[in-house]
């Protein structure tokens, strides 16, 4: 059976992404922001919520920028795809590599928050671990969306276009909220459907949820765009070869 992820490609991608200065800078701020907010009942969610969430999203978008196009446009993808691997495995490898790099930053930030919490005398809370897993899942789902966009968008425009859409939606929801406050609950429901959800709501100490809805939804956002991205990449590549 043909693998859907090329691990050599994933390792090389992660290695290249982890050497970029931008993600390191954002990752550093993300780590510090989480550690500063470490608290007793945070359950590790402090790493991925509040102001830290902004840095987490920036980091995710940074790692997903030009995830496919940098290889396609340089021509290296052509050389790699002449090796015995499928386009699907290459796509999977690029995505998995970005996810691995994200996981490295997340584990570092989560550990920093954990250590900060222990240092402040809050003790060891094993329930912090699910926050790490859910945070990484959330980020990987966004990376999958970026990879899918990267299958047909040049250069950095995958991240640029997605950022523009997200910001435009936030602005729209905010504006409508001011004009028609009664629509806000409906808009919040709609917003939750437009992209990966923050699954950390599952760990909310005030309103704990017993279902796995947001996590399963993010799994859908991880594999759905992945599948769609591979289909788009295949279609575009075959069209290019025939053109």
């Amino acid at each position: 059976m043909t693998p859907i992820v090329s691990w050599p490609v994933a390792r090389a991608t992660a290695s290249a992404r982890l050497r970029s200065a931008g993600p390191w800078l954002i990752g550093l701020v993300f780590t510090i922001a989480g550690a500063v907010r470490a608290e007793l009942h945070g359950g590790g969610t402090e790493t991925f919520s509040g102001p830290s969430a902004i840095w987490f999203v920036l980091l995710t978008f940074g790692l997903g920028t030009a995830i496919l196009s940098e290889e396609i446009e340089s021509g290296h993808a052509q050389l790699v795809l002449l090796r015995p691997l499928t386009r699907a495995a290459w796509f999977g490898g690029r995505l998995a590599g970005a996810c691995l790099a994200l996981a490295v930053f997340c584990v570092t930030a989560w550990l920093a928050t954990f250590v900060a919490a222990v240092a402040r005398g809050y003790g060891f809370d094993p329930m912090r671990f699910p926050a790490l897993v859910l945070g990484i899942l959330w980020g990987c789902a966004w990376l999958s969306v970026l990879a899918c966009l990267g299958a047909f968008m040049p250069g950095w425009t995958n991240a640029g276009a997605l950022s523009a859409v997200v910001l435009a939606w936030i602005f729209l929801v905010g504006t409508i909220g001011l004009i028609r406050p009664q629509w806000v609950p409906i808009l919040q429901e709609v917003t939750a459907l437009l992209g990966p959800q923050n699954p950390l709501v599952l760990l909310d100490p005030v309103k704990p949820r017993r279902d796995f809805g947001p996590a399963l939804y993010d799994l859908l956002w991880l594999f759905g765009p992945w599948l769609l991205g591979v289909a788009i990449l295949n279609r575009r590549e075959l069209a290019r070869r025939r053109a």
Partner: protein
Amino acid sequence: MDEQPALELRSVSKRYRLRDGGELAAVDSLSLEVRRGEIVALLGPNGAGKTTAMQLALGLLHADGGEARLFGGHPELLATRRRLGYAPDAPLFPKALTGLEVLALHGALLGFPRAEARTRAARFAEEVGIAEPARRKIATYSRGQQQRLGVALSLLGEPDLVLLDEPTAGLDPAGVAAMRELLAGLRAQNAAVLLNSHLLSEVERVCDRVLFIKGGRVLRTHDMRVQGRRLEIRLANAATMAARLPEVLAGATVAEDRVSVDVDAEALVPGIVRQLVEAGGEVLEVRLAGAELEELYLHIVEGQQ
């Protein structure tokens, strides 16, 4: 030699649609084959269709007509790709990685275990003369070093078929000489090589067959082995020898201080030189050239007399 060609193009055509609605025939009913142990060169002016022909052979482009086959199978079969090496013209690589890392990545993609991939990476980096730069990030590489890395990548799996698109572009003279040795090594390993180069002197030295291409069509195939090579002997007394030359060397011609004669095999050279010396020729220099590829090129491709 194998019965089955390593690379075969059968009447392949490729047309590009232009923005003005017209079409450009990049390759037009082109046929060629390369067998194992053979080095074949494509020669032609820029835009002749050499790179397109290579990309059609590799399956990187799909032909509008005709068929490309590698080892008798479809070029995109994964099993076929294990036996294939390709160095494109002006390759680019991930700038954040080192040359060794890129080589190790490709080694792993070829299915070598990680340790073996790393060993091969170091070995081939050394073979193409980038042992030291290969430890640095590719962002610091010169054009020639990237070219050498591309060639190392193509050789990494010790392939049965190698396609080299302008491998000497951007190389210094030492690099060109190393490339010549690599090509000789590939022939010794019984690999098939399709070479696209503008360096006629190198093509002349290493290739078995040359295909002259223009406008996407093969104008002529020149077999360097069968159609012989030209022996040039510079004499101190060429003027005096000129009159006696027809009886000493049949078919020889004299131009200025040089005697030229076509030879079928390198082994005949010592005998010819001996004949000339015994006849009183004062030999200053002996040069075994190809069949004057430059002349042929100008005649066939550029239409010059």
